Every structure is written in C-alpha cells, then in structure tokens.
C-alpha cells in the first residue's frame, strides 16, 4: 500500500534490542498496592472504599466522576489500609490521593463481576462502551485518555477507519511489540470489537518496520479478515503521533484544533485493544498492564506484566535492580516521557515504560548560544519554528509564542534532541503551554469574579432602590396619613 510522507522527524538511537527479544514475564502479586485516584486525563476518580474495608479482586475501588474520567478496581483481594496522599508518578513530585491496598495473598475474584459478552458483534455499541467504561480502560500507549470517550466518537461522527497504533516509535520501549507478538489474537479481537463499536468498516494496524516479527505475526493473524490490513510504516520518530500516523496512512492532515475523528479516523493503541478484549470477552476490569523496564542503569531489562499499583522499585528490583547510577528515571519513553521523582511511586495505567537512564544515555550538557543552524525547523514534524518560539518565550512574550503556534506543538522532543547547542526547546514550550493554560484558567476565574461582583452590585442597587422606595412609600403613607388625619379633622370639625 502506498504510504504518505510525514514532515521532518528524527532517527534517535532506538536501543530496543535490550528488551525486544525478551518474552513478557508476570510479576507476582506484591504485598502492598498503591492505586492513585488520578491515572487518566480528566477528573480524578472518587474513592468508594475506606480504610479497613475488605475488598475482592476486581471490586470497584474508585468511581469515575463526570464525562471524562475512569474508575479503578482492586488488582487483588485484601484490605484497604488507607486512602492517603502519596507521591504521584508525576514530574511535580506532588502527592495525590491514593488507595493503599494490603494483599491477603488469596487473590480471590469478586463474585459480582459482569458476565462476558458472548457475541460482542451482536451487542449494541452502547453496551460495549458501557462495559469498557466500567472496566476503567484508558489509552495504554501513554496518553491515558479514557477509552470509552474515544469509542463514543462514532456516535457523533462517521468513522470509516480504526487505526491501531503499533508504531511504538519511542526508543527503548518494546511492550507493544511483545504484546502484538504474544497476544496477537487478543489484540485483533479487541480491535474488531472497537471497530464494531465505532462503526468503522476498516481496520489498519500500523507497525514500524523495525518490528518485522510483530508485523509477520499480526499479518498471519489477520489473514482471515478482508477489512483488516497490517501496514509497515517507516522508522521515523514521531511516527506514533496520532495525527502523523493518520497522515502517513491516509494522507489526510488533521486540521488544527480538530480530532482525527473529524476525518473519520480513530486511533487506538494495541495494548488498549487487548484490554477491551478482556473486558468484553472475559468480563474483567483493567487490573494490570505490560511495561518495559529498561535503561542503561537497569541490570536485566525486561517486559513485565504487573498489577496497577505495584511500586516501581519492586519492578526494578525484579530486573536485578540498578547496576549503575541512574541520572534520570522516566515514566514512558525517553522522548516524550515524564521524569519521575523516584522509584517509590506506583505503576499506573498509562505507564508504558520505566527507564533508569545513565548520564551517558541522557547526554545532557549545558546549553550554549543558538547558532541558527535551522535543524529544528527542518525536523519539526508540525512545521513550526522552534528557535523563534523559544526566543520569545525566553523573554516571556507568551502571546507572541501563542501566535507562532506553540499550542500546535505536540512536545515530541525532536528539536531538543537534535539541537547542537543543547537548548531545552521543548522545556520552553512546555513552560509556555503551562503558562498559557494557567492564564486561560485565570481569565475564566476573573470572568466569574466579575460576574459575581456585578451580581452583587445589582443586588445592592436593588436593595437600595427597594429601601428608597420603601422609605418613599413610608413617607408618602405618613404624609397621606397625616393629610388624611388633617382632612378628616377638617372634615370632622364641622360635623363635630
């Protein structure tokens, strides 16, 4: 099939060979599990258990709040120790509400789990979506956007293609690769269920050409289906970006501020498809995920299937611990992943990689002046001018940065990676995006304050007017009464 070129991009050192040939191993149930209430984009979930409660495996621990949210379930049976503030796996190092579960070692399933949907293709899209929402499934490629919301796009827009993202363009990560190789059937079934839910007639599974084995296995698995295609895409970072992958496969360019769904394409990660399969066919919520534990500092890198809530230190310990000093711990891949405050944080749904990188791998250097080489402009997959944006952000001219398109930046990291002067370009953009979002929130807050102040003024004016009217009325009444009295006296006098 003919592919369409995408703009720019880079070829980082992939270092996938460390884990690519290592089969997924299961991590045994740990003694303690820490399930944060916010593991997804959207509103945090609300705990429905409290300290002292006994829970069974698969039982609801926290329910989703609002339209964009996701519930969490007990990864194993045990007792709730606390619902407490615990350091989040987040670059801020801030604490967040987390359910602490002490495993009882029995791993007993709850009895009230929903029954498997025997024939999902006969079921209504609403039934599938409800099941996926119940299971607490979010995008497992890293973005952690609630999957049912994305599956709902078929209800508003005409979706023709489900694009299954197996590009895995981030260096180091091989968990999608391994899942495709080892659970091809489950991935495929999940994808077919999702396509049915979306009303998409065609499924395209896109896999980068550096994963020939996964391509072969997925091709074999899809032979029986005429509407499913496995397409090898060139090794070019950031091929796995939703918009860029859509462009490479369909040639369609997603307009700014729109979704790929507006073009009739919905993109889901391969591991998400597997989670959908489990929720629909087995009636099981999302309790575990496959994560790549790698990086030069890790003794024996592995792909591990572990329960959500397992402490990262235990997973790294499972890989032989740290052989060298780590300079950075990263949640996700090295390009778009977030730094971790340490390994004393839990595994969450959106965590595709746990990397312990040495200073040689990170290759950080103090930045030097820009020499205007223009490489960042050439490689920017979004057609932006990173050097110019960074220059205005440095002077805190955020409105200019917005005008230059900083909000169109996908933070893929290519410009920072390639910059010969080691200028932290993406950090500047992340800062500007954060500030612009904060300003936006602030503006909305001030609008509300203004509205309240106006309401108060109106109230005071009304009250004053009422008071005045009342006073006037009282005065008038008094006067009238006095007049009446005087007239009556006057009237009465003759009669008196």
């Amino acid at each position, binding site marked *: 099939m003919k592919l369409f070129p995408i703009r720019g991009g880079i070829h980082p050192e992939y270092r996938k060979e460390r884990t690519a040939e290592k089969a997924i191993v299961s991590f045994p149930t740990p003694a303690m599990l820490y399930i944060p209430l*916010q593991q997804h984009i959207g509103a945090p979930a609300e705990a429905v258990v409290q300290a002292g409660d006994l829970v069974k495996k698969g039982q609801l621990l926290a329910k989703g709040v609002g339209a964009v949210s996701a519930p969490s379930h007990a990864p194993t049976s045990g007792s709730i120790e606390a619902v407490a503030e615990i350091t*989040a796996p*987040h*670059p*801020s190092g*801030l604490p*967040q509400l987390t359910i602490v579960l002490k495993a009882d070692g029995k791993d007993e399933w709850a009895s009230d789990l929903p029954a498997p949907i025997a024939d999902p293709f006969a079921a209504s899209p609403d039934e599938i979506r409800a099941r996926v929402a119940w299971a607490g499934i979010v995008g497992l490629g890293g973005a952690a956007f609630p999957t049912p919301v994305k599956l709902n796009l078929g209800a508003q827009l005409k979706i023709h293609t489900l694009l299954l993202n197996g590009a895995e363009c981030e260096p180091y990560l091989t968990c999608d690769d391994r899942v495709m190789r080892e659970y091809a059937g489950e991935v495929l079934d999940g994808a077919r269920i999702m396509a049915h839910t979306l009303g998409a007639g065609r499924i395209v599974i896109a896999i980068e050409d550096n994963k020939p084995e996964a391509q072969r296995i997925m091709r074999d698995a899809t032979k029986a289906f005429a509407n499913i295609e496995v397409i090898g895409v060139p090794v070019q970072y950031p091929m796995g970006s939703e918009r860029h992958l859509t462009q490479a496969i369909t040639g369609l360019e997603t307009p700014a501020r729109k979704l790929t769904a507006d073009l009739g394409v919905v993109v889901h990660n391969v591991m998400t498809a597997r989670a959908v399969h489990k929720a629909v066919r087995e009636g099981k919520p999302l309790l575990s995920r496959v994560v790549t534990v790698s990086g030069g500092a890790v003794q024996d890198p592995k792909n591990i299937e572990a329960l959500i809530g397992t402490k990262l230190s235990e997973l790294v310990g499972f890989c032989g611990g740290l052989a060298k000093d780590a300079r950075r711990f990263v949640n996700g891949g090295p390009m778009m992943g977030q730094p971790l405050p340490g390994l004393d944080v839990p595994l969450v749904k959106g965590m595709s990689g746990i990397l312990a990188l040495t200073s040689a791998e990170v290759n950080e250097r*103090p*930045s*030097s*002046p*820009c020499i*205007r080489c223009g490489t960042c402009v050439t490689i920017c997959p979004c057609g932006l001018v990173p*050097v*110019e944006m*960074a*220059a205005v*952000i*440095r002077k*805190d001219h955020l409105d200019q940065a917005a005008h230059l398109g900083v909000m169109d930046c996908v933070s893929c990291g290519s410009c920072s990676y390639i910059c010969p*002067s080691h*200028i*932290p370009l993406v*950090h*500047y953009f*992340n*800062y500007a*995006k*954060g*500030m612009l*979002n*904060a*300003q936006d*929130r*602030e*503006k909305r*807050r*001030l609008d*509300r*304050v*203004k509205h*309240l*102040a*106006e*309401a*108060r*003024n109106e*109230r005071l004016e009304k009250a004053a007017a009422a008071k005045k009217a009342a006073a006037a009325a009282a005065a008038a009444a008094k006067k009238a009464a006095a007049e009446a009295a005087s007239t009556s006296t006057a009237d009465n006098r003759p009669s008196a």
Partner: protein
Amino acid sequence: MLLAIGSVAIMGAALGGLLGAAAKLLAVEENPLEVELLGMLPGAQCGQCGYVGCGQYAAALAKGEASITACAPGGKPVIEALAKKLGVTADMDDHEEESLQYAVVDESLCIGCMRCLGECSVDAIVGAAKQMHTVIKQECHGCKKCFNICPTEAIKMVTVPVTLSSWHWHKPQSDQAVH
C-alpha cells in the same frame, strides 16, 4: 494684499467655526480611554489598587495618576495590556506576582459580627448575625478585605495549593542566550 488677508481671514473664521461646531456636536460624554481601560480590568471591584473600584482606578489611569502595576487580581497580563494601551513601559520589578489566596474563617474565633459580609465584593461569605460565617472557597478571589476588617482576626488567608492539574513546568534555568 487686502484680498490675501481677507481670504485667509475668511478661511480662518469658517474653519474655526466648523471646528467649534464639531466640538460641540461630536462631544463625547465619557473619556473613551477610561471606558477602554475599564474593559481591560478584571472588574472584581476588590479595591486592592487603593481605589474604591475598577471604575475609579480606570479614571485615575486615564489621567495618568495611577501606577499600572497596582491591579493585583489582574496580574501580569493586565499590566501588559495596560502598558500597551497607555504606551508606557511596565516596570515589572516593583510588581510581585502573588500566588492566589482564599479566605478561611476560624470557627472558634468568629463572633458573627457580619462586617466581612458587607465588605465582600463577590458575596462569597455566607452567615447571619451572631451566627458563624463561612467563606465559599470557589467564589473567594483573595482580595483580603474581610481579612483586614475582621475584629477578632478570625479570618486567615490560605494560598491555593498547586495540584497535579494546575502544576506546570517552570521556565528553564538557563543563562545562555537562545537566539
């Protein structure tokens, strides 16, 4: 000579008359700059600038009497907008960006005097005479008026905490020139 003087004099009289008439006919009631400046201000009527409300501050700004950095709730964006409009350079050095606060009533100290209720410009305090008052956290915009007036120091100002959703990356710490 006379013709020249005469024609210039007539022209002067005619044009002067026209201008005078225009000034009368097209007179603007309000200072348009003032209205424009008022539109830029947050409109919280908080009085932290030292004026009674946003309108008075806008009037002072239009006359060039007030500093453009006085508006606390507006913060940097408002200062920048005012600077641009008034064509002055904003001296950010004497402006400290304060983190957002909200007021909390200490239940043990509140005597229910109702004074704070009258001060609050956004009706964020609820309570009745001799009853404990409380602040609706979502509506409080941290103007400190209640804090200043409370006779028993029952009101505390609390900084709105940074959460996972409001946190964002700080500016890179780098001395080197970028461009």
